[in-house]
Structures are given as C-alpha cells and as structure tokens.
C-alpha cells in the first residue's frame, strides 16, 4: 500500500494505491505524471523515514511507501 501526499490548502490531498491492484496503481501513476507536468517536486520517504531519508524521485515507483509532492521554491 502506497500513499502520495500533495501539499495544498487543506494540508494535503492523498492518493493511495496497492501494488496488487492495477486500477489504483494506474491512477496513482497518472496523478504522478500530472504533478510532474506542473513542475512539482516528488520525494519518496521510506516507512518511518525522516526528511534526510527521503529521496527525490522523477518516476513513479509503485513499491514506494510514501511520496510527498512539494512545490518549487522562490524568494519571498
């Protein structure tokens, strides 16, 4: 079971998938591609991992435990 968290005004919107379930996996992969097109940044976090354990990812890995989508940054 994997979960994607997309940061937004609600805190985050989640998309979950199961490796065994093609429909949920394909939907999650489609969301991943949409977020890439928006130039957001994906970090895969292993189960129980901290920020330093996260890894920047550019392709959807259905075996990932958690993927957090953040935005590009700019000077404020």
């Amino acid at each position, binding site marked *: 079971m994997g979960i994607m968290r997309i940061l937004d005004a609600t805190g985050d919107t989640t998309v979950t998938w199961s490796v065994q379930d093609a429909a949920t996996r394909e939907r999650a992969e489609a969301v991943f591609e949409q977020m890439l097109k928006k130039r957001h*940044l994906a970090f895969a976090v292993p189960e129980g991992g901290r920020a330093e354990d996260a890894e920047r990812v550019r392709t959807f890995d259905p075996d990932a435990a958690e993927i957090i989508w953040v935005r590009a940054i700019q*000077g404020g």
Partner: protein
Amino acid sequence: MVGADLQFVERFEDGRQLLRFTEGVLAGRTVMAFPESDFIYLSPYERAERLLVTLLNPDQEQAWRSTKTFRITTLYGTVELGRIFDIGYWPGADVELRLCVLPQGKRLPEPDIWTNLLLVLTHDPRHFFTVANWRRPHGQWYRAPVPGFE
C-alpha cells in the same frame, strides 16, 4: 467475504483494509476501509503539522513542539525554519543572515511551508540559497542569491 458483495483483499498494520466489490456495477473495483477511530476532524494546520512532524528527527521535533522552529545543518551552514519572511541562517561563526524563501503558488498551511522547505533544503541546499532573498540582521533586504551562491 466481508459482506454480501465485498471480498477482503489486504489488511494493513494501521487498521485499514482493502476490500473488493464482487457483484453489481462496482464488481472488480476496490475500496479502502478506514477504522472508525481515523475519522477525527483535523484543521489544515493540524493536518500539515502531523505530516511535518513525521519528517523531523527527535531534536527537531522537540524544538518544533517548544518553539515552532527547528534547525537543519547543511553543507553551507545552519538554517532555522519556522518564521515566515525571517528564516535564520548562520553560514559560519559570528555570521548571521535572515532569509525569505517560500513555495510557489497558492498559500499553504504554515507547517506545509516548512515541510516544503525542509525537503528542498535537505536535498538541494545550493538551490535553496540561490533563490533566497536575504538581509543582514536589522539590515535591508537584497534579492537572491545569498552571497557566495551567485
């Protein structure tokens, strides 16, 4: 079988269950069932803070709970996240700068801002300092990049 038209697929450690419809127009589709205890209303701030805390190490978490700030050590010095428009940066002994960096786009709950900056700063610190506007303590603001990251 869980019910007349639901088949058990997988149970997760946190109590969630993956179920599959076996009959009707939803046959073959799956649904995630959450424990009743999961249905606690969280404000966007609380939800964002829950996520942020999962990414902090024990020292950072303790600092966040007591001061709503936490520090990150990078190759280029220490950064203190927690104050919008006033991020502390100590590139070396006796040198302090204040930075302003934000996620692009619509406003996020404040802990999400720190989650966003924490992940980018941890994994691409040079980029963080390249886009940060900066000032000396009590000084005027300058546009990015921070000195040394031109």
